[in-house]
């Protein structure tokens, strides 16, 4: 049974005078993976960054509409720190902080004010196990995170997001800077992760969307064209635009 975690209602997003997103309505289901696909510049990353209010870091941005999360509109939330500890994010390129692997993964917990050392250790281990990195780093937890390979760094960043036990993790093309082997590891990880959290992933790789997601949303020029179960969308799209995109006739 699909349970709605987040509900996007009539979302519009403006950068200055330019409208980037138009009237988007979409439900994100709990413990499912939802993929956002579409050609470059269609607004899929912009859409993703609305969920943790990343756009607030920059000026001249404006949201309209609602993203409902536990009965509250994310776009009106005042406490962004609390919000962002519930909604994690993983970026295109790995973003290890210049500190040890342990401190990286524990960073979110420390921000939340967790002081208990034993509890931090447990959570760090759990997160690293969850991110399928524990076996590779358990003997060098206190060495610099920058010494890890790109793929390992990306899994560590996922562990860092997992450590605070978020309700959803936003992935912004998490494998586009990685080699094929590291990519397949991350994809395998993604399919396991939905047991413990919910995933919203932007990808420009349609095969990846088909492999990892349960639902797929096709966005084109800031409009949500089609939202369907992944299998249906890829085998039997309702919209002609979707069909043309997934068969590679444009984009």
């Amino acid at each position, binding site marked *: 049974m699909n349970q709605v975690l987040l509900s996007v209602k009539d979302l519009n997003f403006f950068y200055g005078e330019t409208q980037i997103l138009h009237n988007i309505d979409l439900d994100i289901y709990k413990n499912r993976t939802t993929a956002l696909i579409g050609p470059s510049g269609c607004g899929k990353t912009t859409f993703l960054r609305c969920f*943790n209010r*990343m756009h607030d*870091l920059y*000026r001249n941005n404006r949201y309209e509409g609602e993203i409902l999360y536990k009965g509250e509109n994310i776009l009106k939330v005042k406490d*962004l*720190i*609390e*919000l*962002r*500890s519930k909604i*994690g*994010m993983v*970026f*295109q*390129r790995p*973003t290890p*902080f*210049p*500190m040890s692997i342990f401190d990286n993964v524990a*960073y*979110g917990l420390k*921000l*939340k004010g967790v002081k208990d050392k034993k509890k931090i250790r447990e959570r760090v281990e759990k997160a690293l196990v969850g991110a399928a990195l524990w076996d590779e780093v358990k003997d060098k937890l206190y060495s610099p995170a*920058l010494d890890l390979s790109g793929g390992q760094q990306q899994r560590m*960043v996922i562990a*860092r*997001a997992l450590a*605070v036990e978020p309700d959803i993790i936003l992935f912004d093309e998490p494998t586009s800077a990685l080699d094929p082997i590291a990519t397949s590891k991350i994809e395998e990880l993604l399919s396991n992760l939905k047991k413990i959290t919910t995933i919203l992933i932007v990808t420009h790789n349609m095969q990846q969307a088909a492999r990892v997601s349960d639902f797929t949303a096709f966005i084109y020029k800031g409009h949500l064209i089609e939202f369907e179960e992944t299998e249906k969308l890829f085998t039997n799209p309702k919209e002609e635009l979707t069909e043309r995109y997934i068969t590679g006739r444009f984009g």
Partner: protein
Amino acid sequence: MDRVRKRKLINKIALGLSVFAAFLGLFWLVFIIVSVLSKGFSAINWSLFFKDPAPPGFSGGGLRSAFVGQGIITIVASLIGIPIGIMGGTFLAEYGRNFKFSRLVSDIADIMVSLPSIVVGTFVYSIMVRPMGHFSGYAGAFALAIIMIPTILRTTEEMLNLVPWELREAAFALGAPYYKVIKDVVYRSAAAGLFTGVLLGVARVATETAPLLFTSFNNPFFTVNPNQSMPSLTVTIYQYAMGPYEEWHRLAWAASFVIVVTVLLLSIAGRFIINRRFSKR
């Protein structure tokens, strides 16, 4: 075929000229360093560091007072200049990065980096020495701080700008407030660069004479009180080198030697840290 030969000839001429120019520049630099090192080294002995200047015309004596004075002035200048430089640079690169005002400050700092230091000296003379009625180590330190601030401010700004925005976003995305993002992620990433900027800023002011002439002036006696005129190595070199006594010249060379070696070491250390940081990435 002819054109190829012509091009090769022009190439050789250009190469020859630029090598010549490089050696010409290098020659004087090496000349200065070698002469300071050779003339200064022979004048180095323990009493240089542990004895105060002897009365004019007498031999013996050292420059303890000048070393201590220089040290105090430089430390006080650093205490004023480093925090203001770092915090100002942080404002320009972080909190104030979207303000037009920040661009203006940054441009003015750029101009101030190349401001003749004697102008700073006369400025501090008019706002501190005149109202207080006497020369003081504080005034000297303040003048050096004014010279130090734009250097550190600009290096800080540039070093922080080198830290990718994605890294800050990643920290924000975990729910970090801005000051923690700066403290935990940005400063850490830029630590080597910030340290180098500070090192170079301090090295730059440690060699200044002009701003001290009108501010801390000089004092033939040993003092640790910055509220009175204070000796410094650079002003001492200036006065001793101009003086009539052979002994003074010897001490001036010795002091020059110490300054050159110190600044050389600071600069090499700075370069070394920068290189190591960027090769590691």
